[in-house]
């Protein structure tokens, strides 16, 4: 590839939006419009002839490098099959506090954990593991959080009372259960 084609490739790759012909000109002010047009052609042909996973497309706004359509499905499928997400320690602890103390407000959880938990609450909520179950009494009537049926389902629990009591925890923790709950 010519240096100009390489420069255009780098710019098209790094830009968050399509690049117009004018912008391409500022990118290489010493080059003629014809040279730039030739480099664009060179880049497009290189992608097409050589066989690449991407292609150069001219859209309304200008030029853009896009993933070839035949690979988008595989990429989406891979994102779907991405290895199962694990909850962070912070999220787990927050979930544990909510499970055992519900209904509980954000401020109360933060007091127990000693750190702000805004993002964690949001992700647990998006996961469907917790929900707002009401408003507390008192100043500002804070939102109160509790666990959801999805939470019970996930751990194969029939109801919350099936969670071990705090004083049973030591024993529960010693049992090497690989996956969810025993009967």
């Amino acid at each position, binding site marked *: 590839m010519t240096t100009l084609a390489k420069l255009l490739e*780098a710019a098209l*790759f*790094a*830009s*968050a*939006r*399509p690049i117009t012909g004018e912008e391409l000109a500022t990118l290489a002010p010493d080059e003629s419009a014809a040279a730039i047009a030739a480099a664009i052609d060179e880049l497009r042909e290189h992608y097409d002839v050589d066989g690449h996973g991407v292609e150069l497309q001219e859209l309304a706004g200008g030029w*853009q*490098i*896009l*993933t070839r359509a035949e690979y988008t499905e595989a990429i*989406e499928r891979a*994102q*779907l099959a*991405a*290895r*199962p*997400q*694990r*909850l962070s*320690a912070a999220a*787990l*602890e927050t*979930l*544990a*506090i909510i*499970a*055992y103390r519900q209904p509980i407000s954000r401020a109360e959880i933060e007091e*127990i*954990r*000693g750190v702000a938990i805004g993002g964690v609450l949001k992700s647990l909520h*998006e*996961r469907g593991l917790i929900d707002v179950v009401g408003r507390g*009494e*008192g*100043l500002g*009537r804070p939102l109160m959080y509790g666990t959801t049926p999805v939470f019970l389902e*996930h*751990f*194969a*629990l029939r109801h919350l009372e099936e969670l*071990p009591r*705090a004083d049973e*925890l*030591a024993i*529960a*923790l010693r*049992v*090497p*259960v*690989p*996956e*969810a*709950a025993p009967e």
Partner: protein
Amino acid sequence: MTSTFAAPTDAASGSFAVDLPQFSGPLDLLLSLIRDEQVDIYDIPIARIAQQFVERIRTLELNEAAEYLEMAARLLRIKAQLLLPVGAQESWEDPRAELVRRLLEYQQMREVVDVLERRGEERRSHFARAFLPAQPAPPQAPLALSLIELLAAVDRVLRAVSRPDMHDVVPRALDVPGAIDTIRAVLALRARTLFTDIIMTGHVPWQVLSMLLGLLELARVGELHVTQLRPFANVEITAAARDNASEAA
């Protein structure tokens, strides 16, 4: 100087502003003196370095002076200790030892900073892909979470809160529900009342505040109206439509 690589533009971003014009702390200043004077870090001429240190913090406009002053005090103390006759005790410990340890540790860290700075610059000279086509909200990956993990988290929390100060439930400082009950009781007797009527003479600040919040809460849910004819005038409280009030009672 050691902190010149912090771009001046960083100051605008606030949190990443360089805290001092030339030095990132008293250890940095001390190291720079030792370098300028070309003295052996293991055998620092404390009297000379201490004097220069004090002179430098006088001329510098240091906005975190406390940390520099603390270091100055430490240097002067070491200087005094060195002036004491060593005597014949076999267990004499160089009063500079701890300072040398900290300086070496700091210097080592600066070396890592140089590595990071170099690598960071290297990475900054490449752009990542910026254009990412909008995707239909990617489906969430399945959640890997076992009951045992949850219980382990419970255990961690319990251990973390087993500090005595976490055991006590802090009583709520305000009693808004109690205030709401009082206001409702008063309004049940007469449909119109004054703020001064529901505040008793013996009420302490938290009780007055509870009343006020209760009042605002009831006004918010539409159980009553609050009016004040002019600034600082007494506040009139009127019960809202009867059905609301009776339901509340």
